[in-house]
């Protein structure tokens, strides 16, 4: 049984099929990267998994059980944490408060316990420790990305969905973010990563899928994807894709 399985999932926005029959699996302990250009349906796929959009057809199984039609609050309680595109750090709450709220899916925790766990997060993200009491909106994009990932990890998820963590960040910050993803993987959390930056996305992945206008066109290990000439030219074309 796979940890997460999508079966012919279709998502429509009005008349447009943003996701057109995607099937994919993520096994426990894997890092899987979903590649594709802008508008290929990557974010929509993640939004369908976390319950933000309702698929028109198909099924989504988590640990063998369908989570289709559950509200986002219920899905995260089952262990799927979604760090959405644009980081979505609460602008008017402090960094520590943002991170603490990441534990909202786990019931029966005392505030002191959550605070302790949030402070431990700063060991994994030392760069944001000194901003613990700063309001979310005062942080730079890279710092907000760290907060968003830390907040996602506070859910103690079985699987972490990461949407474009490199978007809009300077190359040196992208390196730092991916170093953290590698560390998350080392600690045994399963990750489904969405990226336009193919080079970075595949560098941490066990397997990858390539999406094109709502359909999966290719899947395989990073080496297999790299060796496909057509794909390499279209999506993995080094510097231009990384821009």
């Amino acid at each position: 049984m796979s940890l997460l399985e999508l079966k012919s999932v279709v998502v429509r926005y009005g008349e447009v099929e943003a996701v057109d029959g995607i099937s994919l699996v993520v096994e426990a302990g894997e890092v899987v990267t979903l590649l594709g250009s802008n508008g290929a349906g990557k974010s929509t796929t993640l939004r369908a998994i976390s319950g933000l959009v309702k698929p028109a057809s198909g099924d989504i199984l988590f640990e063998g059980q369908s989570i289709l039609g559950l509200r986002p609050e219920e899905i995260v309680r089952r262990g799927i944490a979604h760090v959405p595109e644009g980081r979505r750090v609460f602008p008017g709450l402090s960094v520590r408060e943002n991170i603490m709220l990441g534990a909202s899916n786990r019931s029966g925790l005392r505030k002191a316990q959550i605070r302790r766990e949030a402070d431990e997060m700063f060991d994994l993200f030392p760069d944001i420790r000194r901003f613990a009491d700063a309001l979310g909106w005062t942080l730079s994009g890279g710092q907000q990305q760290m907060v968003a990932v830390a907040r996602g990890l506070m859910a103690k998820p079985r699987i972490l969905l990461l949407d474009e963590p490199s978007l809009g960040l300077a190359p040196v910050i992208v390196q730092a973010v991916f170093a953290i993803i590698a560390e998350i993987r080392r600690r045994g959390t399963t990750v489904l990563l969405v990226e336009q930056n193919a080079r970075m996305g595949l560098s941490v992945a066990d397997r990858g899928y390539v999406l094109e206008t709502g359909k999966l066109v290719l899947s395989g290990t990073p080496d297999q994807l790299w060796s496909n000439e057509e794909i390499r030219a279209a999506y993995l074309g080094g510097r231009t894709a990384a821009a």
Partner: protein
Amino acid sequence: MDLVLQLLFTGIGIGSVYALVALGFVLIFRATNVVNFAQGEFSMVAAFLMVVFSVKIGLPYWVAFIIALICMAGLGAVFNLAVYYPLRHRTYLPVIISTIGASIFIANTTLAIHGPEPEVLSGWFDTPGFMLGPVYFDNQYVLIIVVTALLVALQYWFFEHTLLGKKLQATSQDKEMAALLGIPVAVMIMITFVYSAVIGGIAGILVAPVLFVSIGMGATIALKAFAATIIGGFGEVTGAIIGGLALGVIETFGAAYISVPYKDGFAFLVLIAFLIFRPQGIFGERVAEKA
């Protein structure tokens, strides 16, 4: 100088009522991104409930007060389910129209049940007031100021020092993200409506002995409170309080030194000046638009 102190006291007293109603505006606005135009009716309904329980039925004042507030909590919950919840996925416009409709509905339902004649509600205390130095302290105004200060302090503590307060803030800042973290958004919004109806009710009951209890009192208070929120900076809790107090003081001084009939005019003159010269209000700009 004595007159100035006396006017300051009265102004802060009436301003406290505006501040309480303005708080209700701000809390619902932050949770739903919509101005609740029925906020003033919460005050009006609570004042009438108080008249029914205290004057007509003859319950002790504090018992009537508690029962009225329990009814207000119920009204807040029903209001949320009937007026906001069915439209929660729509844009702000249908929701605003829905609250305007609810405001008309509540006012006219009260009119149909009770009739148009205004009622008089006595104050909490048997004695009218006391002198302290040169200033006469009206007991009801003292009560209004003390209760407002306590509620503001309690609310500050709740939002800044409890996890539930943080979850309410998170919900008001980004509902979708709050849901992704497992925060029950619908419950958070329900809490906001219930609380706003209750503080609107407290404001109405406190101010009732100073004014008459009438169908139109809700609209009058709400208009001032709305002006207060704009002066303070919309969506800002501190702004609502400062704006409410400022408005109370300005209209009291305006009435005393310039003209009594134009009392309401001063408040709106200040509002217009703010809309022209500082539309974001005193505390605008503190939090940037979506980071």
